[in-house]
């Protein structure tokens, strides 16, 4: 019950969107799929779902090409774009035609509506749905066939805080059930809470395929926060001792390159009183930005002119 990409390549004319991508998404855990805009995430997901044909290589779901699946809804639940719905159809009818393609009983439609909190609006036209409700309908259609593999593209998009907690819990429980869950998102804080494993791509290549903790430890160093009434004096001695020191506020320094114990010792030797001393681990966001800095296709212009 895995998703496998093997030397997957896609070129659009002279532009290479995805280049020899190889990875495997395993069951029993939530795998985060990260990468800057234009990195090839959507193209990869489209190829896995048979919407685009690879230029070279192949993508397999449970060992088979997606297009050869007889009733794919029972195998893979996909949320690609919550807007890909006819606005004139009711939620129940939308799920109804989808259920029919996989010979699913209508009980499944009720279950999916219940599970996503849409039961009360089942007979409303999708036109009248908010973005969050459409997102829930997209998730309902992914859950419809009770599939062992789930692929969710930006699932928290448009959800309110309660909805975000709900989808996080849902993805965790799907993985605990032993399902394969691949989820893409640009929200790093959310991803840090949800994913166990990460696949990061940039410019069409795999940059990292590793566990969450390893990823952060490898790509970003933590620092030490020091609060002292004699800020500038301490900054001077720490810099001379080899630390990279940055001023955080009127009495606070952030120090990289020196261990917490070393900083404490240096401060004591120099007779500088320390009010607070604490180690900080790097966030997923810092690790991600450090890794993808060079691979960002559409990097925002820094304000060099005014800086």
């Amino acid at each position, binding site marked *: 019950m895995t998703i496998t990409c093997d030397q997957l390549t896609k070129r659009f004319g002279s532009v290479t969107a995805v280049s020899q991508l190889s990875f495997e998404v395993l069951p029993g855990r939530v795998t985060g799929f990260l990468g800057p805009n234009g990195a090839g995430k959507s193209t990869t997901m489209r190829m896995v779902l048979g919407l685009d*044909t690879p230029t070279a290589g192949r993508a397999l779901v449970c060992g088979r090409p997606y297009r050869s*699946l*007889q009733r794919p809804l029972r195998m893979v639940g996909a949320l690609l774009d919550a807007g890909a*719905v*006819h606005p004139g159809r009711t939620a129940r009818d939308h799920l109804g035609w989808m259920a*029919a393609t996989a010979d699913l009983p209508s009980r499944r439609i009720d279950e999916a509506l219940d599970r996503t909190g849409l039961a009360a609006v089942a007979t409303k036209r999708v036109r009248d749905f908010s973005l969050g409700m459409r997102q829930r309908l997209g998730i309902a259609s992914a859950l419809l066939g009770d599939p062992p593999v789930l692929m969710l593209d930006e699932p928290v998009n448009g959800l309110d805080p309660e909805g975000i907690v709900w989808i996080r819990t849902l993805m965790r429980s799907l993985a605990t059930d032993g399902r394969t869950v691949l989820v893409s998102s640009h929200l790093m804080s959310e991803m840090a809470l949800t994913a166990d494993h990460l696949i990061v791509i940039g410019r069409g290549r795999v940059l990292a395929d590793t566990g969450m903790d390893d990823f952060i430890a490898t790509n970003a160093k933590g620092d030490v926060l020091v609060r002292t009434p004699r800020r500038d004096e301490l900054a001077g001695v720490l810099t001379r001792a080899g630390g990279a020191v940055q001023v955080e506020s009127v009495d606070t320094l952030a120090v990289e390159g020196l261990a917490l114990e070393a900083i404490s010792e240096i401060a004591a030797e120099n007779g500088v009183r320390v009010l607070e001393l604490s180690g900080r681990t790097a966030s997923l966001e810092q690790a991600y930005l450090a890794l993808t800095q060079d691979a960002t296709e559409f990097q925002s212009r820094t304000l060099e002119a005014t800086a």
Partner: protein
Amino acid sequence: MSAPLGAALRAEWIKLRSVRSTYITVGIALLLGLGIGLLDVISTVHNWSGMNAADRASFDPVGNTFSGFQFGELAFGALGVLAISTEYGTDLIRTTLVTVPSRRLLYTAKVLVLSVFALIVCETCAFSAFLLGQAVLSHRNLDVGLAHGHVLRAVGFAGLYMMVVTMVGFGLGAIIRHTAGAIAAMVAIVFLAWPAARAVESFSSLPDRMLLINAADALTATHPATGLHTERIPSFGFACLDLIVYLAVFLGIAAWRFTRDA
């Protein structure tokens, strides 16, 4: 193959009956198709005593009941376009292709569901228009029965022709993938192509005989064409061939395009 086809057919049928545009287009087709024919027949019955011999001789009790059918054809052509173009307009096509990844299976299901639905509704429309019209005409004993001459054939083909227009619309919708563009193309090809055929008439009248509207005349006539320009009207057999060619060309190109990409 048989189980997935059955499932795909059910899914496409749910899609067709769960959008409002299906009911609106069919409603308009029935209202105008039946209503205008009925008005025309009532007006004939009303004016009969004042009509001259030539007008009375050229009266066609079958054709008269189909006066509103061009509106019906327009509505059904639009139904055909909408049945596929809205999938592209709303991006639903991506969900559809993920759900039914075999393009050939999906296309087959779409064509079968729409054509069977259109055939049933169009034949219902044709026979209702005919029977209503004859009921009115019977007041002056101008009515004809289905068993008379080519009457059954004419009524049956009036419905079949409308179904073919629906499927030409569907083909154009699948080729152009844009509602307004496909409806414009459908109107041009089905209703407005005659000046092009006229323009080359001095070389050949073959293009005239290949026009859908002239084929419709031949298929729904109860007598051979008379008067000027009979060479424009195809024979019954040629008109049947026209329908087959139009279906094959538009559904064929659409199938090619549909199965080539997402």
